[in-house]
Structures are given as C-alpha cells and as structure tokens.
C-alpha cells in the first residue's frame, strides 16, 4: 500500500516536469526510436524505397541515362506477348520445383545419416557445409570447367568406362544445360538443407525412438510417425527459404550459361538483368522483376498456411 502511494505521485511528476531532453533520453518509446534509427534508415532507403520504385519503374519506359514517363501496362503487355519471357517463367518454375524437391530429398537423407553415431562425426558435419561457404560464383566456375565441352572430366570418365562414345555437350544442348544448371544448384543447396534439418533432428528426444523400437516399430515407421511430424515446422521454414532462394537465383546461371543456349536456361532474374541493365531498358527489366513478386508471395503464403495447419493439428493431437 505504501509503495503504491509513493509511486503514484512520482509518475505524475515524471511526465509533467522533467525537461524535454530528459524525457527523450529515458522514455521507453523515444529511446526505442533512437535504437531503431540506423536499421530503419538502411531498410527504408535501400530496401523499402527501391521496392516501391521498382514497381513504379515497371509502369514507365525508363532507360539508362534518361528518366521515363508513365506508360501504364505497356511493359507488361509487351511481356505477355513475348515468348522468351514465358520461356523464362517456365525455366524458373522447372528449376525451382525440380531443384527444391531433390534438395529436400537428399538433404533430409543426408541429415538422417549425419544424425547417426559414427567416428569423426563433428569433422564430417563440418566438411559437409563447405560447398555452402565457398562463394557460389567460384564454385560455379569449377562446374563450368567440369562441364567443359572438350575437356570435361565427367565425359572422359564415362568414355573410359565405356558407357558413352563421344563427349557430352553439357552446356550446349538446351535440356542438358538445364539439367547441368539444376545439378549445380542442388549441389550447392543440399548442405544448407541437411545442416539445418540436422539441427532440428537433434532436438528430437532419443527416448521416443527407444520406446518405438520396444513397441516393434520398423525404421520406416519410426521415421514416418516420430521424425517426420516433429520435424515438420523446421522443414516448412527451411523449404520456404530454399524455394525463395532458388526461385530468385541469378549468380549460378549467370556464371555458367548467361541464359544460353538459345535462352534455354534464362531465369526471370537473368532475363531481367539482360533486358534491364545490359540492354538498358530499365522499365522492362523492372517489369520482369515485379512479375516475380506474385510467385514469391504465393510461396510464402503456402508455407505460412502449411505451418498454421500443422500447429492446429498438433494442438488437437496433444489433447
């Protein structure tokens, strides 16, 4: 009671008489404003503003060196009738779906392997992550050499094994080029999926597996009814990131094929760079980039609702 009485008047005094500077220095909301200022400045100036500007630019005919005027949906209309744009949409979807699905399958398998007891466990886990550490462009250069049309080590080995009789034209044939680029993407993405899923696996209590084994559960049943349900939330997050990064990939394709042969590996990002920066038609490039936004939102929404549904199911299961 006494504390109430002493603190109540103190608060009134606090808000009324302290000088402005004192209030700015100690009031929680004002203080938070100062703390948030650097982050807000960076994110508004170089992220939120360009995001809005990009959408606006897609409605103009801006080119490098001159500002554009508003032309409505003309860029989009142009793209709608452009077969190369639709080819790039198809390539991007193909690339994202196949690469993400395989990354998930191999990544989960690798995570399950790494979660088992073995000698040099820590070192093997550390080595697995190396492809993720090395800059994508630099490992893409190594793949470029592996995929060389004349001196490819893969072709050489297969010829020596007697499986084929001439060099494979990895990056020259449209479908081969798609497969090669997708393989390089999977190679780079598997370690990320595996290590993050491994972190999720380590939170699963071993006693659950022991109990299930005592009850006679098979390996598959233990995976299906223990590992998979407990891992679903982290799978949803990891795969959302994986899909987003694959969908917006630029550097791997640019370093390997620059969109060739005959646009067979052009993703929306590489096409947008080619049209927007190299050809200088900023407006059209921005329109291609803006066209990626609905796909991204759809991917985020699917994983978001997937997670919500899972939460709800788990909530009802627990009762």
């Amino acid at each position, binding site marked *: 009671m006494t504390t109430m009485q002493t603190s109540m008047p103190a608060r009134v005094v606090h808000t009324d008489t302290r000088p402005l500077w004192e209030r700015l220095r100690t009031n*929680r909301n004002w203080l938070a*404003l100062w703390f948030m200022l650097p982050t807000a400045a960076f994110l508004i100036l170089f992220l939120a503003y360009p995001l809005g500007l990009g959408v606006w630019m897609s409605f103009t005919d801006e080119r490098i060196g001159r500002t554009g005027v508003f032309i409505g949906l003309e860029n989009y209309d142009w793209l709608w009738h452009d077969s190369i744009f639709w080819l790039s949409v198809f390539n991007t979807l193909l690339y994202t779906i196949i690469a993400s699905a395989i990354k998930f399958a191999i990544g989960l398998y690798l995570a399950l392997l790494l979660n088992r*007891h073995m000698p040099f466990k820590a070192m*093997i886990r550390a080595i697995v992550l190396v492809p993720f550490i090395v*800059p994508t462009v630099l490992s893409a250069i190594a793949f470029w*050499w592996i995929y060389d049309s004349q001196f490819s080590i893969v072709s050489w080995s297969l010829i020596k094994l007697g499986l084929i009789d001439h060099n494979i034209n990895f990056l020259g044939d449209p479908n081969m080029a798609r497969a090669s680029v997708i393989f390089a993407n999977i190679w780079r993405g598997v370690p990320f999926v595996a290590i993050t899923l491994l972190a999720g696996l380590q939170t699963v209590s071993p006693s659950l597996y022991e109990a299930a084994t005592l009850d006679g559960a098979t390996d598959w049943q233990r995976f299906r009814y223990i590992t998979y349900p407990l891992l679903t939330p982290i799978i949803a997050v990891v795969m959302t990131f994986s899909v987003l990064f694959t969908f917006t990939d630029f550097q791997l394709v640019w370093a390997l094929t620059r969109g060739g042969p005959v646009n067979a590996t052009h993703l929306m990002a590489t096409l947008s760079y080619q049209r927007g920066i190299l050809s200088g038609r900023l407006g059209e490039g*921005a329109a291609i980039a803006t066209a*990626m936004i609905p796909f991204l939102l759809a991917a985020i929404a699917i994983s978001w609702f997937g997670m919500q549904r899972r939460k709800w199911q788990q909530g009802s299961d627990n009762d």
Partner: protein
Amino acid sequence: MTETAAQAKTAVQAASALVKNDESEGMSYLESLPRRLVTLYLPLFIILVVLLFPFYWMGLTAIKPDEQLIDMETYNPFWVIHPTLKHITKLLFETEYPRWLWNTMYVAACATTLSIIASVLSAYAIVRLRFKGGEAVGVLIFFAYLVPPSILFIPLASVIQAYGLFDSPLSLILVYPTLLIPFSTWLLMGYFKTIPFELEECALIDGASRWQILTRIVIPLAIPGLISAFIFSFTLCWNEFIYALTFLQSTPNKTVPVAIVNEFVDGDIYKWGSLMAGALVGSLPLVILYAFFVEHYVSAMTGAVKE
C-alpha cells in the same frame, strides 16, 4: 508379438551392454557392422565425394601445368605429375587480383561492421525496450529478409546513380546491410532473449542508463552471438554477386566474384589454370575463417532458421 518379444530381448541384452560401455551411442549398437556399412558409410561416402569433388578439381587444375590440362591421354587427369605454382603467381603478380581481393575484404568488413552495430541496437530495442509496435517491427524486419536482391537491383541501380555512388565501393557498403541487418537482428534477438533480465534490472536500480546496460552487460554476454552474426554476414558479403555486378563498372573496383567472371574469360584455351587458381584463392580465406569458427557458423545458420 514374437517380434516385439525378440526386440525387447535384444534391447535388454543391449541395455546390459550399455551399462558396461556407457557412451552416447543411442541405439546404434543394435546394428551389425555390415549393415552399417551399407546403410550409413557407403551412402555418406558417395555424397561426400560428390560434394567435395569440385574443390578437388579446382585445386588440382590450379596447380596443373598447361600441357597436362588438355592432354588427357598421356597423363591421368585425376592426378598431377609436376605441379606448378605458375597459375597462382601469375594471378597474384600479373593481374589485379590482389586489388580485387582487397576490395572484397574491405567491402565485406565495412558492411558487416555497420550491419552488426545497427542490428545490436534494433535487436535490443525489440527484445528489451518493449516499445509500442515493437512486435510489428520485428515481423517487418523478418519480411525484409525475404525480399531477394534479384527484384531490387534495377531500382537500386537507379537510386545509386541518383546518389552519385555509381562504380564506388561505398555503394556496396551501403546496400549490403539490407541483406545482413534482417538476418543478424533476428539472430541477436534470439541471443538477447536468453540473457536474464534480472541482470538488467539490477543495473537499472544501480543507476545505469540503457546505453551502459547495453555496452557493459548485454554485449559482453552476447559475444558468441555477435561472432556468429559477424562470420555469417561476412560470408554473405563475400558471396554477393548481383549488386556488385550491377553497381561496379571499372576493372580495379571489382570484387573477386565479379572480376573472375568478367576479366578472365578471354577465349584462351589455357584460361582454366588461372581461372581455377582465382577461384581457389578467392575461396580460401572464407574456408579458413570457417574452419576456425565452425560452431559459430552452424549456430548462426540454424539459429536464424529456428526463430
């Protein structure tokens, strides 16, 4: 039923074995060695070989003399007979490679430092100051993490042009934090939440200001988190490509990834030696850094995902 009984019997036997040999092996003793070979070591070995082969190939090509590179009949391509440092010395002394390496490091270090300072402040504000709308700000920052550079580079190029920063490393130093801040803020929020707030209350009662609490209590306790955020951000900067490709024009200003893609590709059949040497030298600093901080790196990667 019999199966269950058999399982139970093995488990009991194994449990007694476990008492003798108490290691954190879990249930792995239930498996025989041949079975482990087929289900664990063999697939793991294959995956590791595929994951590491490009690096072996990169390193091998970087030290191969030119004639062995293209003559795959007289020399076994999987090995090198008289290794040479020619490609690497050529790279370091006859090209602008050291300059590109320096640019990359300089940009990465500055952008990372800026981002960490901003992230510490914002993460602390969101977690501990509990200001009005704090949670909404946290969610907004998370969404900023989901905005990819591929949809921002065109408008950003025009913003950079307008600010007069085109072809300057400063443009990258200012733009990279947009990739790093959202990630490190979320990572540090996780770390700050684990610091008991009683410590801060004590300090407040002793008359410390918020700034003193941050610098004398919270930051020293969050050092592991700061290292994780720093290493991961540094790697992201080093790896970044599309902004560097768009904003930098003149050869001496380029970063390693951009320079390798654009400057070494000259149609020469012997380009591979120097290309691979460039890729190798450009990757090594990160791999060494990673080797020293594996734990921090992994906790950064998984921490940001778990949040």
